[in-house]
């Protein structure tokens, strides 16, 4: 499976450097290594979800309880979480660090992923969620750190889009 182990490691190391101690996740191809790294790390609490929106509640609880968390999901999982993001995270001023695998962009071969690609950034904009793309290994560490810093200072959700050029090696 040509998912980049090296870049997954960069992302995971950046999350650890931010003090993230809880990760919620739903499996998706591009996230397999990241989820495995969380599973193998005795210092990380990995919460495998049935549906991504649960992760908003779990991160909200973790935040109020004093733990830093991150959410790993596909863009379709983000789309499935919108109500929780609006009616919990936004309403109650909860920081969320969302890492969203950005399927359905240029290069996408799976026909079933193609609609989500077109909707992701417009929905992020509609929700006024600050977001940046991660498509270059040298950007990973500082963009993740800056995203978390803004989430914590604004007490709002932020998103990083994990792009094909970063996650997929062919």
């Amino acid at each position, binding site marked *: 499976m040509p998912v980049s182990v090296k870049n997954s490691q960069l992302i995971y190391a950046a999350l650890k450097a931010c003090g993230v101690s809880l990760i919620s996740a739903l499996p998706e191809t591009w996230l397999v290594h990241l989820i495995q790294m969380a599973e193998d790390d005795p210092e990380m609490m990995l919460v495998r979800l049935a549906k991504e929106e649960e992760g908003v509640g*779990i991160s909200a609880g973790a935040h109020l309880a004093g733990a830093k968390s991150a959410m790993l999901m596909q863009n379709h999982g983000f789309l499935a979480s919108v109500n929780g993001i609006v*009616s919990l995270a936004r309403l109650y001023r909860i920081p969320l660090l969302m890492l969203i695998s950005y399927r359905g962009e240029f290069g996408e071969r799976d026909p079933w992923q193609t609609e989500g690609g077109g909707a992701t950034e417009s929905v992020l904009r509609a929700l006024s969620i600050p977001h940046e793309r991660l498509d270059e290994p040298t950007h990973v560490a500082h963009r993740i750190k800056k995203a978390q810093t803004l989430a914590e200072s604004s007490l709002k959700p932020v998103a990083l889009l994990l792009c094909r050029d970063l996650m997929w090696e062919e």
Partner: protein
Amino acid sequence: MLRIDALQAIYPTLERCVVVTIMGAVSAELQSLGHRASFFYLLHSMGLASSMGLGIALARPELPVVVLDGDGSILMNLGALTTMARYRPRNLVHVVFDNESLLSVGGFPTATATGSDIAGIAAAAGIPRTSTARTIAQFTALFDESLRANELTTLVAKVEAKGPPVYLTDLPMLENRFQFQRHLRSLRPSQE
């Protein structure tokens, strides 16, 4: 059984717990008994109170956490039962007030009115302890037992579809949120 009576019965015990409630009648009735800094009322996001309780319980295993859920809410997030069961935090008691109705939004019947059994669903999801109470005495005994059991529990309380006249209280949501966060911080174990 009336939910307000059930809440009244466990109110003294809730003093040593961190509590997350759903919106509507549960939140308003608990507040009518007296707000505490350890109570958080999730006034929207139907379904996510259980997930929030799970997040707190996992992040702070030393704190007894009680979620006061409802049939309409948990039916919106049944997958949460499987996630709770997967990690089965010992410090989480999940109470579901089942009035077989979406009371706060007009009283339309939920699926529990036609036979869906929340305790049965929770047990099948893998929650290690589940039970259903139909009287105050039963509910109080089962609640106390659940807190003592030191094992993840879903306790369903069958209650009448009756609520308070108004749901709005004088506690602003964000005041509740920041007070609750500060309170949880103040409970930090001293070694941290």
